[in-house]
């Protein structure tokens, strides 16, 4: 009987044209739009630093120490990167002219024993240029202090500098995931929550207070919950298939990497699909009105997706600052976070925590639905 309900549910769902449109085509269209919007930015290596074009202008005599530092930084490293590319100018005006024409990113202007950093705009390059000066000045101050107070320790300082000790250990997560992939994670979350429509459609067919066919079904000796769970399984499979299509489309057609093995991304979205379907089952068991059964899943999906960052990249962080609980109860955020954790840090405790929250949400939605839907008669239909 379960298999019969399952096969008929599957048959009915695949014949619903709106479902094919919203659950299969719409996410693909949105993924393409995202790709057109910031696909190139995602494809760029997020760890790669561009060489900074900088001018050095000595206003009142060359500071040979600083010049040797920046010359060192302009040498090519083993991985063929160089931090600075230095151009010398005779006057500050010439350098500023080059800066205005965007030929260079900044100017080191040395005058009155100070090194001034001149940039045309703030950003990563200006920060890097300033940081180089600050580091140089820190070392310089350390040397001067030790020379004046404990000159005997100067050799120790030199030795430490040469050994280049670091207390920070570099860990390479080997993912190279762009921050813009968050939008695609949120897109998958939205697509999964669209599954709530699938389950409200299933519920409509099986509940006497929602449709005529539901009346006929409840008059019959069939087990209602068995039929609903068969429908939920069919819906989850269909939604997971829809998500798998989106995942493959993004990975293989658009050429953007999810940051984790594709089979693992698909596996998590199966859980997210089940979550979307469970939410829909709960909505279907609470609401009686056909309009509400269409609008509530849509409103719920779009609200959750908005707060998970589908339309505004930094919203998750804002919520995390002001109301972190909202991020923990928003199924779209929990799902996007699980994917982000997996993609950026691997299977950490935060990742498993997200999976557990999703499983709990599924269990809670279904448990409440079962309590509401147990075989009963109605006060009015």
């Amino acid at each position, binding site marked *: 009987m379960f298999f019969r309900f399952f096969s008929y549910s599957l048959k009915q769902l695949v014949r619903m044209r709106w479902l094919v449109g919203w659950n299969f085509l719409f996410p693909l269209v949105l993924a393409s739009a995202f790709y057109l919007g910031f696909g190139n930015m995602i494809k760029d290596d997020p760890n790669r630093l561009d060489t900074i074009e900088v001018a050095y202008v000595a206003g009142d005599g060359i500071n040979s120490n600083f010049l040797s530092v920046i010359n060192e930084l302009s040498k090519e490293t083993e991985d063929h990167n160089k931090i600075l590319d230095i151009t010398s100018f005779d006057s500050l005006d010439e350098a500023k002219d080059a800066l205005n024409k965007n030929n260079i990113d900044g100017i080191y202007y040395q005058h009155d024993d100070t090194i001034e950093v001149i940039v045309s705009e703030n950003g990563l390059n200006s920060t890097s240029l300033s940081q180089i000066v600050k580091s140089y000045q820190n070392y310089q101050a350390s040397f001067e202090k030790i020379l004046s107070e404990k000159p005997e320790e100067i050799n120790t300082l030199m030795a430490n500098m040469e050994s280049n000790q670091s207390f920070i250990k570099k860990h390479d997560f080997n993912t190279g995931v762009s921050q813009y992939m968050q939008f695609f994670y949120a897109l998958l979350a939205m697509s999964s929550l669209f599954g709530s429509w699938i389950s409200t459609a299933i519920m409509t*067919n099986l509940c006497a207070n929602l449709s005529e066919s539901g009346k006929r079904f409840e008059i019959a*000796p*069939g087990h209602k919950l068995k039929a609903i769970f068969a429908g939920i399984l069919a819906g989850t499979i269909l939604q997971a298939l829809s998500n798998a299509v989106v995942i493959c489309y993004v990975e293989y057609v658009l050429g953007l990497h999810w940051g984790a093995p594709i089979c693992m991304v698909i596996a998590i979205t199966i859980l997210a699909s089940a979550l979307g379907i469970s939410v829909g089952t709960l909505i279907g068991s609470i609401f009686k009105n056909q309009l509400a059964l269409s609008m509530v899943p849509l409103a719920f999906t779009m609200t959750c997706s908005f707060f998970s960052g589908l339309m505004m990249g930094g919203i998750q962080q804002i919520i995390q600052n002001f109301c972190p609980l909202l991020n923990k109860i928003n199924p779209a955020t929990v799902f996007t976070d699980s994917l982000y954790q997996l993609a950026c840090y691997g299977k950490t405790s935060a990742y498993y925590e997200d999976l557990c929250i999703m499983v709990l949400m599924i269990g809670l939605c279904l448990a409440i639905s079962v309590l509401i839907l147990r075989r009963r008669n109605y006060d009015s239909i």
Partner: protein
Amino acid sequence: MNESIVKVNNLVKRYKEKIAVDNFSFELKQGEILGLLGPNGSGKTTTINCILSLLSFDKGEIIIFDKAMSPKAYDIKSKIGVVPQNVAVMDTLNVYENVDFFCGLYIKEKQKRRQYVEEALEFTGLSDYKKYKPKKLSGGLLRRLNIACGIAHKPSLIIFDEPTVAVDPQSRNAILEGIKEMNRAGASIIYTSHYMEEVEEICSRILIMDHGKKVAEGSATDLKNSLKIRERICIGMPAINDDIIKDIKAINHVYDAKFDGKELIISLDGGEHNLVHILEYFSEKNIPFGHITTKLPTLNDVFLEITGKELRD
């Protein structure tokens, strides 16, 4: 014929303050076609929904096949077929799949189910439309599909809730003939309608409802025989004076006579050859007249006499 199939005792159903079914009782016996007749809103469908355990009720008792009906009474439900008032089919499934899906809720065995589905399609004349989706069917065919879904599992109790609403006369006749055939095959039937002609045609016993209450019960003949007015004669004429009306009222078995501006309407409470006596009087007085029609009482007249309003009001 004596075995009780459905027994409803003192059923009361309220929607907040409104009483939809008010101390309603009846019994359906084996092999009967019981007609529930009443105007829209009289409580027929509510009664049916209570019988089927779709609706909860405030008071009363419903016994079907000698067992109390409940939402989990699967053994009782497996013997009931329902043809609801509104077409209750799945839009995404074709004709065959619809009948198979609903039949499958009752019949687990695949071979048997296949045979039953084919027989139901044959019975309702839908064999040529197996692959059609409901949206492609005409109103009449859709009603037939509604019936096929309700009767495919060969139930011994079938409840038809206004199955002919918005159906063309040809399809209506086919549906009524089908119901009679199912009854001949052994099914006991409850048939609700507000079309008195249908009820009169197929039901062995009729129960008239109004405002959730039973107002009359019996066979069509018994109900009509219980009326004071047994015949009505209408005679078309341009004008008439009061003396003539007075004379007509004096004729044997004439209960009432009145002129509505176009016709003289004479109500009679029995007797034979009444028209002959009236025509003899007209001839004797040389009174000119146009058309003459005679009408025997209908169930509408029964309803009118009991409730003071038309059945179709």
